[in-house]
């Protein structure tokens, strides 16, 4: 396990595997544990969201702010559960749930027009004016049968994204 201060036992790995519904192999969990310990600089058992910003590749990602909101104060189990959406073994439903959570800023189970606008703003930045964004979003919503005032719930997301080929994966290095 290298130079980590606390080692994972076989029991721990299996428990974590259960927790993430076998999204990762045991080797991947061990590898992710090393990564977790590296990010948890002060050895307090959880990662402050600030630590993710010290990864340049993460910090320049347009959605880093939204993700930081979700990532605060993670212990190892939560870290694995978060990343399990990106495993090739996770279900399409799990991935769509994850995307829903990114949009649902106030965690009330409903995604409003403003929520979608926020994410769109993060992604487009200065390349679109606020007016253009609102227009595009309203138009696209109408075409799909919703209005500006409708709230999308998880089942709506499933319907919209469900029959597509969603590729959302991150490979865990296993040495």
């Amino acid at each position, binding site marked *: 396990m*290298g*130079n980590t201060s606390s080692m994972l036992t076989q029991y721990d790995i299996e428990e974590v595997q259960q927790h993430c519904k076998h999204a990762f192999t045991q080797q991947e969990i061990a590898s*992710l544990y090393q*990564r977790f310990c*590296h990010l948890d600089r002060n050895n307090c058992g959880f990662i402050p969201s600030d630590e*993710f*910003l*010290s*990864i*340049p*590749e*993460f*910090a*320049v*990602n*347009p*959605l*880093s702010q939204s*993700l930081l909101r979700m990532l605060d104060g993670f212990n190892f189990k939560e870290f694995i559960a978060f*990343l399990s*959406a*990106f495993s090739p073994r996770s279900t399409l439903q799990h*991935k769509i749930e*994850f*995307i829903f959570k*990114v*949009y649902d800023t106030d965690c009330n189970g409903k995604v409003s027009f403003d929520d*979608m606008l926020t*994410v*769109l703003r993060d*992604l*487009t*930045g*200065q*390349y*679109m004016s606020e007016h253009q*964004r609102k227009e*595009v*979003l309203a138009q*696209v*919503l109408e*075409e*799909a049968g*919703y209005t500006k005032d409708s709230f999308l719930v998880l089942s709506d*997301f499933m319907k*919209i*994204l469900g029959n*597509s080929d*969603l*590729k*959302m*994966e*991150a*490979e*865990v*290095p296993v040495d």
Partner: protein
Amino acid sequence: MNSSGVLKSSSSELDLDRPNIEDYLPSGAAIQQEPRGKLRLHDLLDISPTLSEAAGAIVDDSFTRCFKSNPPEPWNWNIYLFPLWCFGVFARYLIIFPTRVLVLTIGWIIFLSSFIPVHFLLKGHDKLRRSIERSLVEMICSFFVASWTGVVRYHGPRPSRRPKQVFVANHTSMIDFIVLEQMTAFAVIMQKHPGWVGLLQSTILESVGCIWFNRSEAKDREIVARKLREHVQGADNNPLLIFPEGTCVNNHYTVMFKKGAFELGCTVCPVAIKYNKIFVDAFWNSRKQSFTKHLLQLMTSWAVVCDVWYLEPQNLKPGETPIEFAERVRDIISTRAGLKMVPWDGYLKYSRPSPKHRERNIGS
């Protein structure tokens, strides 16, 4: 199809044939939002490529890999290897280390007893004084290298003293400078350090003509650029050695070169340094250990083995920008030393990327 996500596989190296080097992210596009034809709600809501990139960065990122010191695998794990290892520890700490300290002390005595008189007595005869001081600095560096039993193989033609040339090298540890200095007395540009290293810097290195900088000072860059230019113009000055990475990297990767060395209008002579980790890892992880501890670690190991290649001098090609020139030279050095190139600025070790870099990534 209006979104092209590129999955960042963490085990692959990053694509480097990008013309715009100022970009802080390699590949990967955010969703293009110009409505071309039919934009459907599905396309708008599908943020999976961007999320995949973020998750990839969380799981493993190329920047952290540059500064990881991989500890060697322990080999002393059975009944006959362990006593051998114990004997080795005994030999290294109790026999070899004191011998080395003795050698180093003798070297310092010889050096100081020659340097101080020469420095003060020959004040009037500058040329003679400088050439003697130069040889003395080369000598003390040889003593340093001997104190770690340095096995250094130099390849390529030795640097000649000519005006309008700078030397650039990849950077792994402070000892890079000593390894190169023992062959040729270079003037070097360094970060001013506290403690005894700083004392050495301000007294002895002053005589070979060193330039100081301070990473944390914002205005520093212009001052340093001016000093560099002045130094290179002077015919009498020692050849200038610059480490354009700006920070120590773990000798498996190279981070982006700062363009300061490449816009001086001189010939750039690349030098590649590769350490062999067989006995000790020469990478100085400045966050994990102080330089003193690092030096002690080197002095209590069997040997420091490295190769130094002096490569063919390069000039700015017509139509090439200094940044492209820097990347070209970095490619030459990395190929020679077997290092992988990574498109990150070494200074990100000390600071976070600013929000404007996130803006630049959008829509690219």
